[in-house]
């Protein structure tokens, strides 16, 4: 028992050293991917074929292939082009960290684009028409009416995507990035105690994902005060939604 506890403590402290890298990868790729997702969603909603179709194709390709292929294509595949190896981008594309980041960002952009598009489409047209008839310009309408309402609508879908992203950062370990899963794999091969290491690594991911889910629930509550019904018990609200 003592041996078990010491090993658990050792593996937990070892794995915790990977947490900053996991969080960094997730955060950076979600932010970059989010910006790209907005661009893609606007392209999809532009009603112009030459913008809509490239965005559709992008989303189809990135959602239809495994993330691992995308990571390998960027990390191993790009080296095939001698022109690229001579370019100024190579110092970045040579690094496993930046390749993982890029692949994760491009991947999440495709999934989030549909979340963003759904959010933008969910804004009632009456609201937009009202803003327009008050004399707001397109941009002002977007900034004051469409965007805030759409962002609020996107929260649940986006929280799913972020949780998926936290889990996806584990794939960076396949290209030598030593985040939590990379450290876990190394520890397993050194100690041959897969169950204990899995429990520790799994607990770390569960805590991160729980925090993300909780944070988004709080955000949702903060931005949708009208959905609060103080005299109804929370579990009753849950049931009525089902």
């Amino acid at each position: 028992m003592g041996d078990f506890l010491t090993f658990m403590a050792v593996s937990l402290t070892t794995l915790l050293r990977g947490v900053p890298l996991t969080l960094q990868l997730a955060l950076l790729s979600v932010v970059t991917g989010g910006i790209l997702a907005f661009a893609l969603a606007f392209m999809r909603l532009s009603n112009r074929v030459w913008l809509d179709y490239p965005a559709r194709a992008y989303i189809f390709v990135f959602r239809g292939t495994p993330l691992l292929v995308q990571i390998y294509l960027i990390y191993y595949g790009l080296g095939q082009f001698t022109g690229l190896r001579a370019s100024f981008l190579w110092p970045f594309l040579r690094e496993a960290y930046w390749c993982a980041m890029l692949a994760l960002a491009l991947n999440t952009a495709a999934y989030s684009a549909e979340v963003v598009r759904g959010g933008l489409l969910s804004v009632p047209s009456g609201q937009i028409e009202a803003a327009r008839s008050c004399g707001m310009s397109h941009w002002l309408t977007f900034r004051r009416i469409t965007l805030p309402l759409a962002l609020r609508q996107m929260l649940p879908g986006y929280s799913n995507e972020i949780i998926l992203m936290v889990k996806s950062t584990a794939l960076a370990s396949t290209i030598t990035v030593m985040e939590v899963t990379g450290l876990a794999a190394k520890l397993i091969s050194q100690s041959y105690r897969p169950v204990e290491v899995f429990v520790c690594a799994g607990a770390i991911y569960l805590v991160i994902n729980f925090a993300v889910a909780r944070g988004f629930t709080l955000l949702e509550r903060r931005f949708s005060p009208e959905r609060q019904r103080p005299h109804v018990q929370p579990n009753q609200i849950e049931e009525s939604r089902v």
Partner: protein
Amino acid sequence: MDYLTLMGFGPDGWGWSMLRAAAMTLSVAIGGYVIGVVLGCIAAAASFSGLVPVRSVAGAYSTVMRGVPDILVIYLFYFGSGQFLAALADLAGHDGFITIPAFVVGILAIGVVSGAYQMQVFRGAVLALNKGEIEAGRACGMGPALLFRRVVMPQALRFAVPGAGNVWQLVLKESALISVIGLVELMRQAQIGAGSTRQPFSFFLTAAALYLLITAASGRIFAWLELRAMRGVRRAA
């Protein structure tokens, strides 16, 4: 060597190897999916159980498997199964190292992970049923088994089709992760080809195209299934 000769079916071409690997990917994915459906059914049934411990076990299974990276589960199964078998063999007085083939480990790992997602799909489908119909069935004197067979299952299956399609897409992409434990499926085959020809981009691009083909084709199949399942359902215009 140009791309077409490289991926062709000639003596130096990798075409057949890549196609064989794609077939392997499909069989791992189908095997994992079937196990996932079975586990999902059991877990969904458990989640409706009247017994609190049974419900909590199902809930914990679903939360853990959906909250932890798939690749970690694959590592656990791969390294864990060896340890488990060694312990069993030790008990039996057998001495030596036994390994389970990567194919079996892969199918099991994918099955266990996808079962957690499948459980939620089935749960949602059962919850979407009209409560009145279940009450009506009970009022007619149907027992739980008959009620399930005649009322719950046929309708729940219908509601489950779209979600089950999503899980299938997930499983297909997850099968790429099995390459890390050495099974020669599409991803691993692409790595092997990339290593021996030094043309990684060509190989991973081909692998990506084959995945895309499989996902697109199976997406069609699920769309057709959904259309079939929804026959006779009246929808508001």
